[in-house]
């Protein structure tokens, strides 16, 4: 799906080589230009351009009435964004780190996710909550959480997690245009890792659809966000053992892409799920449930999960011991292959 310069020439759409964070910045800018009802709210997003520079230059360009520096008040500005959404605006809020979202959980669980239901569609909340997540960048305590499963469990909100620059912009635009709330998780470890050609126009990637990154025959690997480079490294290593892997980036964690999961599992019969969130009650368990419902008789081996542990994400001296590693993923692939 990566657009090459060649494609740029063919399609006539200008592309630029962008990092994930630049693609997000570009996606926000694209949407601010397209729709005056879109506002950005968050801490340090205006003058400072966000702690990761996701909103760099946007306040300058669109004004402080559209790119709003809020008080340090997660429940307050998420709640304010609810009020704006009730009144016809489309707020995109930035939670500085996913681990800082907890004060806003009440707003999310009791209003953001429920307003359409409890007003029978009279009001709805077309809000995007952006949040950098995950460990591996030596952040301070609490800054490294990966609690997507708290939100996939809540009815009324979609959960999206890109793993590359092209998907980041396309999914972000789809999320902003979605009439319902979307939690948009940004793998901060991948913010500046790789560049990709990203079209400068407004393009959308449908929510709820995964993507096959590499086609293979022997083992299905299901992952998202910051786990993909680790998965790809492990898959590369497996090639020397002639193990070929079907690598799927799920991209949306609710609703999960049942078809892509079932299609791959029914082909390979062997599955490894990789996520950095805690194991118990993680999205991986939900994926196993989908496999159980759709593909039980195709399985040739018990499904393996490689996940974060059921412990608070440790301070950074131990964060690489908490995170799934290439070694753990490789071991799991061999295990399901040799079963």
């Amino acid at each position: 799906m990566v657009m090459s310069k060649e494609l740029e020439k063919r399609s006539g759409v200008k592309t630029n080589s962008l990092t994930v964070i630049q693609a997000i910045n570009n996606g926000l800018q694209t949407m601010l230009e397209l729709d005056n009802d879109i506002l950005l709210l968050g801490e340090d997003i205006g003058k400072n351009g966000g702690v990761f520079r996701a909103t760099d230059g946007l306040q300058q360009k669109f004004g402080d009435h559209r790119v709003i520096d809020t008080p340090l008040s997660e429940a307050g500005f998420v709640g304010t964004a609810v009020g704006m959404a009730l009144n016809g605006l489309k707020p995109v809020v930035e939670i500085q780190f996913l681990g800082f979202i907890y004060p806003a959980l009440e707003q999310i669980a009791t209003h953001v996710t429920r307003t359409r239901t409890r007003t029978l569609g009279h009001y709805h909340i077309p809000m995007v909550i952006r949040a950098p997540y995950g460990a591996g960048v030596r952040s301070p305590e609490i800054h490294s959480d990966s609690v997507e499963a708290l939100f996939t469990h809540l009815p009324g909100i979609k959960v999206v997690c890109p793993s590359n620059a092209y998907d980041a912009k396309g999914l972000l635009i789809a999320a902003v245009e979605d009439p319902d709330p979307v939690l948009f998780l940004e793998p901060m470890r991948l913010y500046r890792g790789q560049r990709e050609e990203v079209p400068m126009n407004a393009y959308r990637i449908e929510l709820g659809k995964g993507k096959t990154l590499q086609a293979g025959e022997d083992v299905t690997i299901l992952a998202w966000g910051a786990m993909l480079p680790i998965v790809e490294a492990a898959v590369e290593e497996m090639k020397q053992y002639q193990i070929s892997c079907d690598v799927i980036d799920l991209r949306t964690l609710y609703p999960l892409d049942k078809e892509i999961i079932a299609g791959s599992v029914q082909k390979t019969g062997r599955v490894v799920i990789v996520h950095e969130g805690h194991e118990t009650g993680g999205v991986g368990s939900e994926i196993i449930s989908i496999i159980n419902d759709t593909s039980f008789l195709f399985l040739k081996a018990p499904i393996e999960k490689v996940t974060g542990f059921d412990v608070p994400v440790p301070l950074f001296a131990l964060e690489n011991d908490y995170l799934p590693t290439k070694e753990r993923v490789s071991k799991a692939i061999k295990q399901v292959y040799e079963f």
Partner: protein
Amino acid sequence: MKERYPLFQIMNKNGELLDHAYETEITVDQVKSFYYHMLRIRTYDQKGVALQRQGRIGTYVPFAGQEAAQVGSALALADKDWMFPTYRDHGASLTFGADLDRMLLHWNGRIEGCLPSREKHIMAASIPIATHLPHAAGAAMAETYKGTKNAAIAYFGDGATSEGDFHEGINIASVFKAPVVFFNQNNGFAISLPVNKQMNSQTIAQKAEAYDIPGKRVDGMDIFAVHFAVKEALERARLGEGPTLIEAVTVRFGAHTTADDPSKYRDQEEINRVREEIDPVLRLEKYMKHYNIWDGDWAATITNEIKAEIDEAIQRMESYQKPNAADMFDYVFEKPTWTIEKQKESIISTGRQS
């Protein structure tokens, strides 16, 4: 602090005006409208308690004693303003224009009862305490963004002032000078907890100082005081001068809900004894008698009209179409996700549609 925030009154408990400037300000039609709406919501409230006792609706939340606070504030709003009520503010919602049938359905466990008015911006009552204060700030900021002069009002009780969202909502509104009125009804109790154990502050109005916004303490049993204080705050909001915090000091005559027994935590007999003396509806009646605008025939007529209106609404509520279990899946997202579609199909196929 109580001296710095004296109780604003326009009429005393005998129904006599304390400030003669209001003699020309208050019209007979206005007084009659105040009385009519207070009588209407009181009748509704009494019916609500009775229907719950008879097992015809679920738990009901009575607001008797708070009629002046709710009617006086609701009638200060303009048509395009936003109302963010709590579960005890159906008197205010009904007065501003919420649908009577729907308000009854709500107490009967029906989601249709939450459906906001088509004509007015009345949000479905907030159940989690204080969480709607930031919503009022946001809805008001959106009005400013659109360039209108519309404002928002948030209702909340004394207990709500201990919640974080009370602070966060008022703080944000004050920073952005959002056109909001934060309308507190201090009825003295948050379920069982008396206000002196809820906070060390002597008043709620004084909390406005922390945000550098006006705070006003008004007699919540004096409908004129409530009405004119809210009106002034709304005018200020429309001029772009930002939010105001109003504390309407009132009394919850009854229980927290019909599931609550207030004699467990307060001297309910004492409240019953003083009730007549402090009753906001009777106070306005005294006013009307004192200024010779009381008309017994008119009062009898509106009493009957209100009774008939509410009885008819109860009939419609009780004959409302039965709930359909499959409906619960239809308003989670604009387009149901596959998990919700699958679950809806399963409930339909197992015949659990009631």
